[in-house]
């Protein structure tokens, strides 16, 4: 199966990545090649095989419900592109 230009645009939208219209053909060709590689999996019989999400049979621990972190927002917000009054600034979403 091959991806259409519309498929690429849909994926690009879902992934929130702008794909230039002149780059679509190249993206399409490379994604098709990668999907060709991973499509090999379809031929394998995995009936009754439990999916493996972790490399070992361990139960993820819960830590005690206590505050362990200091308030670091000033430090972290030094990295932000736009901040005011301790808030991250983004373009207006509601008119």
């Amino acid at each position, binding site marked *: 199966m091959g991806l259409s230009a519309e498929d*690429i645009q849909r*994926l*690009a*939208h*879902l*992934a*929130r*990545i*702008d*794909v*230039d219209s002149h780059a679509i053909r190249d*993206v399409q060709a*490379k*994604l098709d*090649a*990668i*999907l*060709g*590689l*991973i*499509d*090999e*999996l*379809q031929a*394998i019989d*995995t009936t009754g*095989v*439990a*999916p*493996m*999400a*972790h*490399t*070992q049979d*361990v139960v*993820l*621990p819960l*830590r005690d419900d206590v505050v362990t972190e200091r308030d*670091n927002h000033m*430090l*972290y917000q*030094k*990295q*932000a*592109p*736009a901040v005011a009054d301790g808030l*991250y600034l*983004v*373009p*207006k*979403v509601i008119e």
Partner: protein
Amino acid sequence: MRTIAELSDALHARRVSSVELVAQALARIDAAQPTLNAFITVDAEGALERARSADGELAGGDARPLTGIPIAHKDVLMTAGMRTTCASRMLASFVAPYDAHVVSKLRDAGTVLVGKTNMDEFAMGSSTENSHFGPARNPWNTECVAGGSSGGSAVAVAAGLVPACTGTDTGGSIRQPAALSGICGLKPTYGLCSRYGLIAFASSLDTPGPLAHDALDCAFMLNAMAGHDARDSTSLARPAVDYVQALRANAGARPLAGLRIGLPSEYFGDGVDGEVAAAVDAALAELRKLGAVTVDIALPAVKYSVPVYYVIAPAEASSNLSRFDGVRYGHRAERYADLADMYKKTRAEGFGPEVKRRILVGTYVLSHGYYDAYYLKAQQVRRLIADDFQRAYGRCDVIAGPTTPTAAFCIGDKADDPVQMYLNDIFTVAANLTGMPAMSIPCGTTTGGLPIGLQLQANHFAEARLLQVAHRFQQVTDWHLRAPPARSKTTVADSHEAARATQP
């Protein structure tokens, strides 16, 4: 003198100071940077300050084995107050607000951080060509790739810039550049070294580990890096192992007597270059001389490792990298129409082509209607692969084979063909999918003078055994001692020795 073991002895005997070693490392990094491009950031001033403090500890007699040893971290590990870029335009000016767990552990062990090494962007790649800062170059032949994604770390060690570096391994990113650059690289068991502060690519696979000249130095590094960390929910609490001590024991002429080495037919097929296969065969002959026996094993599902990996890793990446949206940190596009457009343009500008490709593939395999066919299927086949290895470890103690199908390829050769690039990881990805430890050690060179790596794998938490096998091999061979042509063989400590030797 170039290994941690040798430098540590010299530091403790006060034959050389940390300031001298660090100054020498900085001078070498400076000299090598235009040709090798191993570093993204160098912190000369901070490094010398840390070295002075290490010299104070050494003078005070309370130094540890790694006190004063210069090292570098892969630029995917957060270093407080120091730029941490992931070799991406997205984070080109990002200064980490805190240290990764392994970074703080190595600092607490006394190492002196000199800088951050080059890599494939967000650790996605097998050649360090996908770096926003340009490719790292192989010191054995600068027309060739250094491997990746921890290419800068491998080059920094291979070229003798620093004795050891950290790397991270998601599908082979420590072992493959180690093999291509002629050094040792160890990917520990998943969960042994904390991922806290490792900027996530594929969380179920990412593993920090050391790159160094030999097994003993990998053991020194692993001693400092391993250990439980509550801040990583997948970090495992285990009794501490002294990996250095495990190598110190005296051994007879047949130190590997009783060791069973499994040879999977899948690792010795047509896809392997003839010179690589011959070097691996010769290494196996050495291991047999040391007392090991080899047994033929089969890993029938391992042939699906690459397709499984290229579903699971991009799926996890597409989720992990959604955090780079131009709001809280990193690059933000200058021109955009609205919020959605800001995200899209920020990510289009901030990410390079391979990162975007993997995010798109990950988005696809997780999208409605495809999740079961790809992601769930890949997780099931992942279990089949893990079951194969568990069965195999009933019949052998370690598994050996080539780390990569070929030695280093030329820069640019595979850059436009992602699938060809992915197939470079064919022997390394299974250890990530299963979470088992694996290491690459040098075992030969091609007629063109390029290094060849032997991969040793073992069951969960068998790092000590892997290091022992590698160490015994290195006690009777000299592949790990060979230096690339460009490397200066004289060190500060050596010149001190020479000066002392010529004194009347």
